[in-house]
């Protein structure tokens, strides 16, 4: 993606200085609020009120330690829901993509249309019926509900990405394996899946980002603190201690940090997933 191949028009000196200042200004606009949040977590509450712009007087970890204890339950729920739904979504999508590209399923265009068409349906529209459905399944207010919903609503997009990738893979390898008597299951596990590794990683990263940050379902289908994920937990902390800015800043930073780190570590795959998703 970033193999240093400058496909662009370069700017003359004066203009360049101006553009640099512009890029820098936007950079400050992006980073400053985030720094304000992260640094606010080190301040005392009165410090935030009295001198909002200054650096913390003493770098106290009290808020972060308190926030760490207060968010542990939410962190655990977020982690559990994210990890399990990532595995189920990517596995189910990889199977489906294999079935849609490497087997002779009857009515293939229809099946492709059905699964990928799910991308067009918005979660908001499903809310009302889902309440009753989850209640009658007895999984309202459980981690299972979120895992199920995150999987169902992300299988279409994930299948779309993996299918596009599988369509571009050469068929010689699996045809040769078939000649040698390999079963479809073996072809899937030993040939196709390893070849798909790059797109699978992209899918994992994109799903982690989605599940970690999801709010709509998490807010409506969970009630108890032990089930709520971080985004919902933060809003309930907010309503409980709305004026203790310092504590909230620390909790917000703790919930944002893992995903920012994951983004920086996996940027390459992440960008690939995004461009495959929108560019095809």
């Amino acid at each position, binding site marked *: 993606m970033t193999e240093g191949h400058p496909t662009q028009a370069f700017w003359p000196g004066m203009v360049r200085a101006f553009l640099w200042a512009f890029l820098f200004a936007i950079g400050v606009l992006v980073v400053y609020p985030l720094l304000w949040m992260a640094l606010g977590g080190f301040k005392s509450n009165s410090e935030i009120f009295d001198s909002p712009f200054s650096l913390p007087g003493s770098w106290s970890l009290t808020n972060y330690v308190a926030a760490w204890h207060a968010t542990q339950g939410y962190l655990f729920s977020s982690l559990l829901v994210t990890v399990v739904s990532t595995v189920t979504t990517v596995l189910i999508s990889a199977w489906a993509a294999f079935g849609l590209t490497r087997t002779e*399923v009857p009515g293939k265009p229809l099946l492709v249309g059905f699964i990928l068409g799910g991308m067009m349906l918005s979660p908001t529209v499903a809310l009302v019926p889902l309440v009753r459905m989850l209640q009658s399944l007895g999984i309202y207010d459980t981690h299972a509900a979120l895992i199920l919903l995150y999987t169902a609503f992300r299988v279409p997009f994930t299948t779309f990405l993996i299918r596009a990738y599988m369509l571009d893979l050469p068929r010689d390898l699996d045809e040769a394996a078939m000649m040698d008597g390999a079963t479809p299951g073996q072809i899937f596990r030993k040939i196709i899946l390893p070849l798909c590794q790059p797109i699978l990683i992209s899918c994992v990263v994109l799903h982690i980002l989605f599940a970690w940050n999801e709010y709509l379902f998490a807010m409506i289908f969970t009630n108890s603190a032990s089930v709520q994920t971080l985004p919902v937990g933060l809003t309930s902390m907010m309503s409980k201690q709305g004026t203790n800015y310092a504590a909230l800043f620390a909790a917000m930073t703790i919930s944002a940090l893992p995903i920012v780190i994951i983004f920086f570590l996996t940027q390459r795959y992440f960008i690939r997933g995004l461009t495959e998703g929108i*560019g095809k």
Partner: protein
Amino acid sequence: MRGARSSRLQNALPGIWALRWIAIAIGIVGWFVYYPIVNNFLVSTTNQDIFTGEVTNVGLDNYRRLASDPVIGTALFNNSMYAVLSVVFQVFAAFWLAAIIEGLKSERWRSIWRAVYFIPSAISTTVTGLLFYFIYQPNVGILDGLLTHFRLEHLSRVWLGDPQTAIYAIVAMSQWQGFGYSTLLFSVAIQKIPQELYDAARMDGAGPLRQLISITLPLTREMTGMMIIVTVTGAFQVFNEVMVMTAGGPNNSTQVLGTWLYEQGFNQNDMGYAAAIGSLIFAITMLCGVAQLWYTRRRRVLA
């Protein structure tokens, strides 16, 4: 003839057996994505009493209510305004920003700017929404602090508490969070343009701005079209930022379709009417979806 048919029969069995690869995906998507949408239409023609559990059929009454509900008007205005401003900032401005970034000589700085601008998009809207809730607070928030610093105190106000400014304050946060995402996508699209085109243009004496207008702009038009559709669809599904920052208030001035559905269904317990609002969202996002399909089809034919 006969031989062909029997071999087709033989092929049909492994074909059906191959369905096992797809069965779970079909099942889970059908059950939790498609079925609720169908069910939503049924619910929208009823009124449900949550205390007695009594369901009465009311036909299209809930849809008539949609037409006469002033908050639906507010919500449609807010969603549309959201869509327009997001297209301006997250499609058009993002394109120019990406063009500027990709025009830098140092690859290292290019990737630094792309990544830095993207950070807010990686963070949950709950966190960024709460953060801006604090930024907009009078006295403590840094926005009023900045205005005071520049002697512009007279401009400061209760940003989220004033029906005149609240929705714009939310939209501004949303642009702050989202522009880096589309800038990144445009950057990738610009990188895919062959360098020879620029070299040739330079030989012909075209300056950077000229090159941008006659090469970069037309060759990223596909991406622009897709981005407009995706952005507009997203604008009609807004929920998280509004819920976290104002929950639709003050005075319903920041209601969008999603939060009004939530308010009616989950606070007023009027599931029938909430479902009708759901149908409205469905119709709008479906239109965007069809536009997207039509656009990709046309593109493929042209390509």
